[in-house]
């Protein structure tokens, strides 16, 4: 062990990282998103994806969905740290429940002619992507699905003239009749 000149014990943690999707129900008030993001940056946690929108306007409730990675101990910390924020009602680890559906929407712009154009349309069909804008030399596809599916679609579009991608980030909800 090569310890630097410090009275701290500086160690590497070797636990493997996991990816978790967290659903966070918050009071929709000024600064609430800044608090959540500040927590992640301030404590060195990762954000892979973050989406936020008001979900119950009368009650001023917003739902934030965060995809994050970390060791199991770090993931547990993230949940506790989120939960103790004053405007946070509830934190649900959608990954841990193993009963959640995750979706993302992407708009994918592809430019090309001839064979490429035909191929792009054919693939879009196979992925159930819809054409939401078209010119003689371009398409904008709308595709919904989990992150892997969208990544795959984008990869396929790349050689066919991919111009631009806009993604919403992940939204998640539990299966079955119960709410969160």
């Amino acid at each position, binding site marked *: *062990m*090569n*310890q*630097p*000149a*410090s*009275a*701290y*014990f*500086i*160690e590497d943690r070797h636990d493997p990282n996991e990816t978790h999707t967290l659903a966070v129900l*918050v*009071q929709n008030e*000024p*600064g609430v998103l*800044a*608090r959540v993001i*500040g927590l992640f940056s*301030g404590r060195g946690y990762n954000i892979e994806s973050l989406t936020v929108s008001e979900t119950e306007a009368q009650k001023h409730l917003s739902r934030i969905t965060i995809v994050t990675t970390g060791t199991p*101990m770090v993931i*547990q*910390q993230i949940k*506790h*740290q989120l*939960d*103790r*924020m*004053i*405007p*946070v*009602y509830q934190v649900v680890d959608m990954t841990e429940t193993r009963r959640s559906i995750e979706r993302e929407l992407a708009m994918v712009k592809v430019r090309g002619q001839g064979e490429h154009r035909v191929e792009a349309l054919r693939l879009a069909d196979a992925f159930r992507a819809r054409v939401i804008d078209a010119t003689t030399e371009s398409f904008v596809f709308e595709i919904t699905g989990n992150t892997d599916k969208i990544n795959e679609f984008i990869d396929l579009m790349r050689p066919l003239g991919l111009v631009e991608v806009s993604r919403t980030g992940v939204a998640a909800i539990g299966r079955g009749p119960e709410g969160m």
Partner: protein
Amino acid sequence: MSDKSHDPNQMTGAAMIVRALIDHGVTDIFGYPGGAVLPIYDEIFQQSEVQHILVRHEQGAGHAAEGYARSTGKPGVALVTSGPGATNMVTPLTDALMDSIPLVCISGQVPTHLIGNDAFQECDTVGITRPCTKHNWLVRDVNELAKVLHEAFYVATTGRPGPVLVDVPKDVQFATGTYHPPRKSDVHRSYAPRVKGDATQIRKAVVLLANAKRPVIYSGGGVINSGPEATKLLRELVEVTGFPITSTLMGLGAYPASGKNWLGMLGMHGTYEANMTMHDCDVMLCVGARFDDRITGRVDAFSPNSKKIHIDIDPSSINKNIRVDVPIIGDCANILGDILQVFKAEAKKPDIKNWWQQIAQWRARNSLYYKKSNDVILPQHAIQSLFEATRGKDTYITTEVGQHQMWAAQFFGFEEPHRWMTSGGLGTMGYGLPAAVGVQVAHPDSLVIDIAGDASVQMTMQEMSTAVQYELPIKIFILNNQYMGMVRQWQQLLHGNRLSHSYSEALPDFVKLAEAYGGVGIQVHKPGDLDGAIKEMISVKRPVLFDCRVAALENCFPMIPSGKAHNEMLLPEQANDEATAKAFAGGKALV
């Protein structure tokens, strides 16, 4: 037309602020005026229920409010102006967050229509203080102000206590609106700290405790924050179980230092017996402490063979640094009460005679040993003399940060909670003097002493002026080693004795400085004069700067060296150059 002028709840925002302070039982606040808080100062001027202490720097207001809070158990209140007033509060807010001190800071802000325009003395106060408060608010509507102020007090003082800040634009202070007294609905429904511990977990804990062969109780600042009931129950638990007890820096006084089960403080500069007991124990009961890195040393070698029970009101403290076996979330007093009840009903005092014999052997190593001298005052000796001279007196101690702080923790015995105010988590030099101001405001007739270092004390020295103005007879007991001793110690141990910028050049003449402020200066060089000088200091009923010239090169031991475990402490008698070099080597060739 309805006439609202007779409705007593109709008032300006500035008046609401003073009214809310009164409704929350606040009698003293610490502050500094400026353009953005003038309406509030105008209200303060026209009443006499809330006393305002004018500090000399906003950081002083924050630390004074911390000292006030920590010594009373009540929230401390600070009032500052916008811009620089608010930015000067960042250090005390962070300090209070780290040490879980209930603090309510009210800051002025530029008028709402100017927010975002880089107006004069504008800064994004809620943005800047978001990560250093438990919660903060910007109030844009005077009719929201009462609710926010009440919630602020509630959030600061409940659950894990902490600092909060309410930012009030000047136009909101001038505007008239409706005030209401505190009520339940003022608080976010999403904020509900857990108080009662889980019964199943409590049973599990009692089974572990009842069957322990080598137990230890490790308590922290949470016990003191929880209030007198927690302290009482902790003492009772020690009595009923017969277990040894140690504590963190923040927890000193919860169990009396004269108590027979007391092991002394643990951690980096804790006693050998406390750290060895932690390392070799089979059951550890952690009450209101958080396994900070200064406590654990090397985490993968921390108390490797013990089952750990952790009581904490903050779920995020659980399993943050150290994995525990039985977490119990809730208030210490509540949970200790439940544990005691179950223990008394179902268990009996375990026989741990062998364990105590082992502990006696560790104690016999006398890890706080130091060699007294007839020529020069040893800093440890100075603290011991101070302790002896204050025995039986109604004494409160604050400290700055450095070696003197650790010596104070090692050599001053605390019998009661709320008597020891130190910056533990943040380690803020400059904390002790203003904190002493705050403590003395809360306890005008008590003996309040800041155990200080020559470097730290210069960071907030200007608050001597506050002490003189308000006739607060605080005693600033400077262990003057003419060094930033703790920095020098690390440079000696870890950086090849290259003493980069740790010598206190051009120190002021503290006696003349005291006199310049209108206080009293005392200087002592000789061990033989020490007791007399301390006596004189105590008898003076004015602020005193006590320049205690101590051995310049003394270092603070015992110490857990870098990357080492609790059972690899460096003891004072071993701390010769060669052993020190070896202990700190740890695979590197730097020492």
